[in-house]
């Protein structure tokens, strides 16, 4: 049990009802579990469990909970579907505001939008949207994430982005409980004019509170948003083929899925621009070959057996090092034929080709592109994950990004001091976004069970930030939390602006800002300019790795 005094628990219970509050250890521990690598550690329970989990059922109850937190000066953090506990509470003794009772979902087909609450999942949203010949954006985490969370509080990038943009731009009007407990509606809903825009006629400061990266729980609680939906030419219910978990989606009528391949990223980039300009291809996604292999297999053992015996299909090997999984979408046979003709012409002009894939592989790739369902299989490769810089910028940068990744990986593949995943160490996931943009992030699989591996991965991730700082490659995201003060000064000072916003809206610093920004820069960030010169100098690297090894090895990982 937490040390929360009974009268405070009673105060929460008065707002949400006694069944919706718990300070039991077994309940709060679930909000302390490190599911993914937001907080790299050799531990799974981080030792900073919230003091209580509170489950409000309405915006008014959220505001009530936040006011109780303010009354007793308790930090709090919103929790929607809690995918990976990625943005879990960062401070021991906080209140985790679990929004699982808020599942509102309303489709407005005329306006091609939906109005959703935090616990509506992308899988639910897309299923309901399909019934209206619409679809939503689904981020890489897959159908079980919260679109509201990704739209308000994170970057919101995802596989289908070429057709469905990114959730940071898909967010329309929103309802917000400020860090002090005031309910504010931003955009059209602020004037009771519907949910169709995040800017006026009501208050229009959507950009300020979400920015490019998102509020990451550091700016109160978002309780309802309007979100854009996009045209969908497929059926009202997706058809599935194959046995679980090899289920795939046969391309619907007038859809086609291909794995495309080029000899080099220069040609591939040229083709990408042509695909974008022609609009012949709706969905464009790149999974690294090892990730494709994991999508196609049900267990690690199955993948490994195929890998070591050389029996992986080509699309899961380096034969597919330079390429895209694409799906075309058309409303008519004529449009389908036009898409095919244009795509074939683009391939001919850029030395590209369609790789041979079986029906099963095609269906699984289609499911991955249309629903993002199998991206999460990447988590099987290791047991924790880190993310490199993350770049959202012009397609023209693709060749340079891949080259940079390989440079950043450097010697970690083979030499002493590090051991990254032996297969396809370059793990650039890429997908296109609207306009001329693409997104990439490099997710090196890593494990707590092999200290040298996690050290190598952390080394790589930091190296990627440093190289991006020296020679910026587009807008680098994931510069948040503690990293914002380390890397912000060389990347346009987002940390300064984030801090101004934070301190303006949360003067008591109660909305847990571990993953957004702290009210004041940490002392370490002041030492960082010197420290990085030492630790990332070729002579300093071994020392740095030793420090990391000691840190990650101290918990005696199994």
């Amino acid at each position, binding site marked *: *049990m937490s040390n929360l005094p009974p009268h405070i628990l009673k105060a929460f219970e008065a707002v949400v009802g006694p069944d*919706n509050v*718990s300070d*039991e*250890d*077994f*309940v709060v*521990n*679930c909000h302390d*579990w490190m*599911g*993914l690598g937001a907080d790299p550690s050799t531990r*799974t329970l981080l030792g900073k469990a919230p003091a209580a*989990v509170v489950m409000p059922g309405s915006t008014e109850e959220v505001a009530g909970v936040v006011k109780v937190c303010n009354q007793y000066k308790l930090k709090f953090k919103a929790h929607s*579907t*809690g*995918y*990976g506990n990625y943005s879990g509470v960062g401070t021991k003794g906080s209140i985790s505001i*679990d929004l*699982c*009772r808020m599942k509102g*979902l309303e489709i407005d087909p005329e306006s091609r939008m939906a109005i959703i609450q935090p616990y509506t*999942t992308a*899988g*639910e*949203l897309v*299923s*309901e949207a399909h019934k209206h010949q619409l679809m939503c954006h689904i981020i890489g*985490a*897959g159908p*079980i994430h919260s679109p509201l969370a990704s739209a308000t509080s994170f970057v919101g990038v995802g596989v289908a982005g070429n057709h469905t943009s990114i959730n940071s731009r898909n967010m329309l009007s929103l309802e917000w409980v400020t860090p002090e407990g005031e309910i504010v509606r931003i955009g059209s809903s602020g004037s009771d004019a519907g949910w169709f825009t995040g800017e006026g006629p009501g208050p229009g400061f959507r950009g300020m509170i979400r920015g490019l990266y998102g509020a990451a729980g550091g700016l109160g609680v978002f309780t309802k948003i309007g979100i854009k939906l996009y045209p969908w030419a497929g059926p009202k219910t*997706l058809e*599935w083929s194959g*046995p*679980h*978990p090899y*289920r795939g989606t046969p391309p619907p009528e007038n859809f086609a899925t291909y794995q495309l391949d080029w000899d080099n990223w220069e040609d591939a980039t040229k083709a990408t621009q042509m695909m974008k300009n022609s609009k012949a291809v709706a969905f464009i996604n790149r999974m690294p070959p090892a990730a494709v292999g994991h999508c196609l*297999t*049900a*267990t*690690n*053992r*199955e993948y*490994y057996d195929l890998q070591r015996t050389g029996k992986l299909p080509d699309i899961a090997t380096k034969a597919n090092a330079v390429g895209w999984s694409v799906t075309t979408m058309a409303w008519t046979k004529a449009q389908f034929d036009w898409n095919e003709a244009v795509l074939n012409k683009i391939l001919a002009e850029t030395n590209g080709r369609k790789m041979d894939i079986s029906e099963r592989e095609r269906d699984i790739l289609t499911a991955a592109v249309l629903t993002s369902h*199998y991206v*999460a*299989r990447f*988590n*099987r*490769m*290791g*047991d924790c994950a880190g993310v490199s810089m993350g770049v959202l910028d012009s397609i023209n940068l693709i060749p340079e990004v891949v080259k940079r990744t390989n440079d950043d990986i450097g010697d970690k593949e083979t030499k002493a001091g590090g*051991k*990254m*995943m*032996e297969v396809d160490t370059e793990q650039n996931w890429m997908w296109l976004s609207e306009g001329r943009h693409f997104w990439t992030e490099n997710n090196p*699989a890593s494990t707590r*069970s*092999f200290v040298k591996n996690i050290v190598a991965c952390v080394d790589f991730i930091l190296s990627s930030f440093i190289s991006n700082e020296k020679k910026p490659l587009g807008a680098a995201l994931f510069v948040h939390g503690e990293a914002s003060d380390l890397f912000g000064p060389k990347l346009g000072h987002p940390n300064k602006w984030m801090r101004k916003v934070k301190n303006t809206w949360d003067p008591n610093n109660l909305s847990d800002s571990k993953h957004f920004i702290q009210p004041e820069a940490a002392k370490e960030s002041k030492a960082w300019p010197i420290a990085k010169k030492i630790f990332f100098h070729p002579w300093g690297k071994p020392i740095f790795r030793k420090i990391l090894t000691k840190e990650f090895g101290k918990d005696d990982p*199994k």
Partner: protein
Amino acid sequence: MSLEDRIHNMEQCNRCSQCKFVHMPKSQEFSSICPSKYQSRFHASSAGGQVISAYGYHNKLIEASPKMIDSVFACSMCGACETMCKSHMGDNVEPFDTILEFRAQLAEDGKVPETLSNMVKHLEQEGAPHGKRDERSRWAEGLDIKDARKETVDVLLHIGSGQAYSEKQWDNLRFIVKLLKSAKVDFGIAYDSESDSGGLAYEIGYRSVADKLAQEWADLVQKSQAKTLLAISAEAYSAFKNVYPRLNKTLSSVRVLHTTEYFEELLQQGKLSLGMKNTGKVAYHDSCRLGRRSEEYTPWNGEYIRVLNTMAVTDTPRKVNYGNDGNYDAPRQLLSRVDGLDMVELERTRQYSFCCGGCTGVKETYPEMADGAAQELLREAESVGAEVLVSGSSCCQANMAAAAKRSNSSVKVAYLFDLLADSIQEGA
């Protein structure tokens, strides 16, 4: 196997929450897959949450508070979490196996709700969670069924505790006997020597009780020289296929079939036929014990090793269960043979079926949980226009029928053989 052996798998849980949701739902209304989480709402009651609790308990970071014990045992062990987890994580996590070990540890530590521990005591003493041993075969009085303890039989029936002691279910049992006789099947029962399969004791966590019950039954089956073990209860069927291998009990001398499978065989062989039945729209509910939990379990005693610097793989190949090989088709084929029967499918079917919440002592210990899950299924049946919701499990049928009565649902709940009662005829 112990909780310690599950540490690797527990640490692989990335808290993605797939264990709570159907693999690509068809609607928001019926997107949940976990009856426990659906109702209690705290993550702790989901499979992922139970894995975290097990981890904390094993590492002495948390204690077994009464609420934690309730959270663990208010779960019907339907196995949906495991099937869903494998959508992404293969055999890395397998939360169901961890939950089994968690329960075994809690049982060893005396941390089991009293209602359940009393059921297990009764199992130990009387071979059933309720009722007296010498009353187990009262249902069969006057039916002139061969005594498999004294005579050899081709087919040995296992009745199951639920139906053997519930007078409401006796007509169904007598109907099954009538059908077997009509089809001239050489069958028998073990009368009062039949015990519970041991599945219930195993799932609650009492391994030694489960072991004893399973061994007794396995010995009896072997002595009977039967070629077929015919399970009437879905729970026993699941235990024979999925729990016995975990207990290293072999039933290899017999084929294990559920009545739905066996009667489908008899129909295919022309030994029975089905006539007309005007029922209105019928939806079939895939009971977890007949479905994903009846998939044959193959023991594996290997270890996970690291390869390619990061990946955990099993050191030897193993058969992984995905819930695909449950008994899904036979009940549907049986129903489809009835002229005039209008079948509709629920949104959540086969390995993606939503559990009615009645099993593993949940109905007895947490009746509101069992009712809530059943009400959800009734709503699902209503949403597809079903007038009748059919189950091949008498336990599910009883739970859902009681729920339908409580909520005055427009959906009638029927046991599959009850539905077919006046439709099945002798001969082709």
